[in-house]
């Protein structure tokens, strides 16, 4: 088990960042998905013991989040979302220092820093001062400092923020390689669904401080087969009656009709029925996957 949380609650004044959050997450590559303000960063800080929670408890890698904070941080590598730098040093010194802060001796830390900088493709810039790095380079540098001490779990908080498409792709490949080929567990926090889908196998969806969905991405992504959303110009009720007569399952939803076609039929049936009753179809699309639905619902919840 990667981590387990029970009834975690955290408030910042009038704002409740996490509301009685309970979750059990298996080891592997886990995505933490949610819009801005959903509580992702607060959850990460809770796992690391960086903030004081108001209520609840949990374990990370089998260690209690209240009483074994330092042990958890020893076993975890964290790349924060914000730009974070140790001032006045070159890249290799930055990463070596990060390793020394985890207890590595100076020599090991420096050797390891060179290795991980090669791995994240920052080898050429290792002797430049970190203040001169581009945004993409700083993201790689944070990743390198997170893995220098070979943690069991890496937590990446919005690692592709501010990156160009090529750089974003490289970060995603690195994250996938670490989690799938190098035996590390990964917690990948993002508000970008494609990033999470590209890297992770399991996903948590947060919204408004609550857990909205959890599960394997493969299962959550399955599009509802034979499910369509339809909007017609004239009489939706009449059209719906005709669909039902044709053997379709119909569910009105606002001004849409959610239609489940019979297994052997395609969307051509909808056009045929519309033509036969003189109706015009103004909107037709396959119904979104559960994951997209849930994510959008989380956005709505947060906005409201």
């Amino acid at each position, binding site marked *: 088990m990667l981590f387990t949380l029970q009834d975690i609650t955290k408030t*910042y004044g009038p704002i409740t960042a996490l509301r009685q959050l309970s979750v059990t997450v298996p080891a592997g590559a886990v995505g933490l998905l949610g819009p801005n303000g959903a509580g992702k960063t607060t959850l990460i*800080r809770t796992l*690391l013991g*960086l*903030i*004081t929670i108001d209520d609840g408890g949990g374990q990370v890698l089998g260690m209690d989040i209240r009483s074994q904070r*330092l*042990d958890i*941080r*020893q076993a975890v590598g*964290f790349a*924060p979302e*914000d*730009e*974070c*730098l*140790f*001032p*006045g*040093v070159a890249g290799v010194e930055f990463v070596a*220092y*990060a390793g*020394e*802060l*985890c*207890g*590595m*001796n100076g020599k*090991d830390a420096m050797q*390891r820093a060179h*290795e*991980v900088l090669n*791995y994240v493709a920052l080898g050429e810039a290792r002797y430049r001062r970190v203040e001169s790095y581009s945004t993409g380079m700083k993201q790689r540098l944070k990743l390198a*400092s997170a*893995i220098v*001490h*070979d943690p069991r779990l890496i937590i990446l908080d919005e690692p592709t923020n501010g990156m160009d498409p090529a750089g974003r792709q490289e970060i995603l490949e690195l994250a996938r*390689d*670490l989690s799938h080929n*190098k*035996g590390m567990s990964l917690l990948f926090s993002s508000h970008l669904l494609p990033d999470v889908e590209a890297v992770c196998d399991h996903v948590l969806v947060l919204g408004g401080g609550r857990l909205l969905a959890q599960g394997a991405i493969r299962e959550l992504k399955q599009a509802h087969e034979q499910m369509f959303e339809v909007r017609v110009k004239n009489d939706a009720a009449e059209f719906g009656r005709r669909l039902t007569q044709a053997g379709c399952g119909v569910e009105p939803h606002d001004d849409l009709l959610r239609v489940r076609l019979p297994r052997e039929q395609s969307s051509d049936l909808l056009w045929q029925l519309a033509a036969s009753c003189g109706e015009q179809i103004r909107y037709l699309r396959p119904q979104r996957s559960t994951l997209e639905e849930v994510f959008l619902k989380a956005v709505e919840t947060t906005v409201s």
Partner: protein
Amino acid sequence: MPIFDQGYQHWKGPLSGRVWRWVTIARYGVRVQRNNRIVRLLLLTAWLPALGLIGAMVVWGMLERQSESLLAIFSKFLPPEVLQEPQALRATMWTLAYSIFFKVEMYFIMLLVAFAGPGLISQDLRLNALPLYLARPLTRLDYFLGKLGVIGALVASVAVIPAAAAYLVGVCFCLDLDVIKDTYPILLGSVAYGIVITLSAGTLILALSSLTRRTLYVGITWAGLWLISAAVGTIMTTIHGESLRQEVYHAESDRWLDEHPPPVGAKIKQYGNHRHPVFQNNPKTSRLELAGLQPAQQAEGDRWVQEWSRANGQAWQKSRTEEGAATRGDWRPMCSYTANLQRIADLLLDTEGAWITLGKAVDQPQAALKKSFRVVMPANVVQSPPGSERRFADQFVLQYPWWWSAGVLAGLLGLSTWILTRRVKSLDRLK
């Protein structure tokens, strides 16, 4: 298909104990400060007083070896009985040399803290480095101790290490193992003083540094704390001492005038609340005479003036004595931050005892020593009666109780600790 994957490799090396993590932070901080040109320059020049201290150890060692050239020079300041057996004053002279060294070195320490200290936490706040620190397996205490260790390393390099080096040189030049028995409290006192400076100045600059992301403001605040507090303390002490002295002098003078009125017709002028005889220059005799007297009264006037001069000197002496007594309860020097540190140094090194010992042994005019030590004389120079063994201690050592300064420094330490705890409590407060 690659035979050997040259990508990410796992690592399973040894890890140091958590108790040493603050050393890592301190070492990193010192490395960063070494890149600062001004800090490097200060570290270099701060050794000049140390060379003076080492020189003093060498000179006294050679005096103990009865070096003829040095005996000839020191015979002007020290009595023959001291020069015949300088070992008896060894601890005293070493203490005074160390006291002067630390007084001069304090300027360098304050400058070093002003240049190296402000960025210790403020830069981490500006560059958002705190999440990187606190996401590692170390506590806030490790972070603070590490930053404090940077100040400690700088103070050690300009104060404690030179003091220890001078001690070693002094021991070598004395060629007498009893020197260690006589003088080890000085070494211990120096180390303890270094620890006090590190704790006090270190926590204070860290607290100031944690309040803002702008390093410049912290540096300016530190300079203000140091220089303005010193100026305020000096000004208040001087004004108080001067007004007390004038008050006592004028009271004595007026009392004598009441008891010993001048010859009839002599002019006495009123200056505010006190009176003073009026003198005039006699062009024939080129002497100052009491104004308003007839020629026949001049002889009487001259006798009166002589008595008045004697009484005037005694009144002045009394005013200085009372001023000296008042300094023992004068809190005004405590307005200066560095004066409080100096008071603790005087306690740890027993500087007062050393000056008293010197006062007993030496019977030379104060002018010689005043001339030698002018740069370290405090503002409220007081004067004990001639022949008093305390006449040097009262001049060169702050006289108010040492625990007042300890209380001030402890209060500042508490305030600094509270600020640091509040500012870096958790990531809840950071952005």
